[in-house]
């Protein structure tokens, strides 16, 4: 508690908020693992709107988005046993699963499911999220990340959007943008570096 006395009020409040969220999520994960009826209700109340908004942004169809939200939450419900209740970042996992369901849908409708395409569900293993910074979706972090994103050049923003919201590989982006692959890789790496550096600043602060 001495630590709180030494910290500025805003930062202390932020840390407190994160601690409360972590405690809440840990309890929620325990109840999800026990398949308590009210746990799914609480999971939806906590992440349903964000999940729906993300999926809708990707698929741009309300009815499809509803189907994919349901698929996302059922996947969480069925795989939560492998999730680390104490340390995992539940919100980050839910968003990742949601994004992957939506991208899978886009790929299936666009005919982009090629032989070499990566199976997205390999990239949402619950174990990965155990070592993740559980404050990934803390308000302050997201706000600073968004502010950094808005400072990117239009080309950098475009490649980030194509990667995150359309699930494109860098080769596909190069084809879409009619740019050399090397140029697209440069835009992508530089954009991600800006965002990464911003998060590092938050961590240092």
């Amino acid at each position, binding site marked *: 508690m001495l630590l709180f006395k030494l910290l500025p009020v805003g930062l202390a409040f932020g840390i407190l908020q994160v601690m409360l969220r972590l405690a809440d999520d840990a309890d929620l994960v325990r109840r999800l693992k026990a398949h308590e009826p009210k746990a799914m209700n609480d999971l939806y109340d906590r992440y349903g*709107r964000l999940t729906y908004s993300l999926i809708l942004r990707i698929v741009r169809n309300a009815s499809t988005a509803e189907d994919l939200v349901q698929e996302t939450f059922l996947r969480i419900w069925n795989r939560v046993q492998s999730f680390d209740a104490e340390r995992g970042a539940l919100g980050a996992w839910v968003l990742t699963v949601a994004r992957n369901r939506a991208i899978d849908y886009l790929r299936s409708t666009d005919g982009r499911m090629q032989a070499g395409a990566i199976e997205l569900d390999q990239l949402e293993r619950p174990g990965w999220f155990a070592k993740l910074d559980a404050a990934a979706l803390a308000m302050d972090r997201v706000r600073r990340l968004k502010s950094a994103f808005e400072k990117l050049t239009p080309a950098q923003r475009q490649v980030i959007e194509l990667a995150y919201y359309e699930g494109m590989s860098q080769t596909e982006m190069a084809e879409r943008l009619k740019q050399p692959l090397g140029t697209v890789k440069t835009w992508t790496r530089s954009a991600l570096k800006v965002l990464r550096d911003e998060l590092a600043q938050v961590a240092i602060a």
Partner: protein
Amino acid sequence: MTCQELEDLFELYALGALESAEKSEIDAHLARGCDKCQHALSAALALNAGVLSFVPAVKPRRRLKRRLLTSVGVHYPSWAWVWAVGAVSLLVVAAWLGFEERGRTFELAAARRALIDSNSERDRLTQALQFLSDPQTVPASFGKGQTAPPRGYVFLHPQMGVLLIASNLPAAGPGKTYEMWVIPKGGAPRPAGLFQSDGMRALYILNGPVDLSMIGTVAVTLEPAAGSATPTMPILIAAPIG
């Protein structure tokens, strides 16, 4: 590739956006339990989640939650039946009020009609009284001495017109009406209005000035409901004037 060289690729790796050769490199590092790469992956997942949460918030439809909870066997309290009962109740009340209002409207219309009829009858009787009480009124009778009545009187007034009062005049019957005729001396009958009998008596007034010196007879015939331009025989009432 070294861990250092892979460092910038973890976000794209976690998004499934790397080409397969680069992906295989990272897979190999992670499989070896490389701490540095594991840490880089965690940081990349956190960054990705942050970027994915940029989307503008859109509220899903309420039914989505119910559908989701039902799919995992959770009973979601639905208030739909309350709304349904409420809606049906409102409809019943609205229908009842509608019938009440309609009934009230009919009653009001009937009362208005009765009042109009009553006022009209009162006006006719008042006018008839004026005919009878005015010294300029000239009376004429009809039907006296006939074996089959109707009988009655015709009163003529130079300004007020002609008043006919008949008794023992049966109802005209369906599609029929009585028509009064003013027959000038030496002239053709002129239509002077249509009227009905209540089955026993009739009172009819032709309003407007008349030239008493020119009128020879006031007559009544039974005609079709719309009346006729010329009298249909027989003449039921004939009251000679003067």
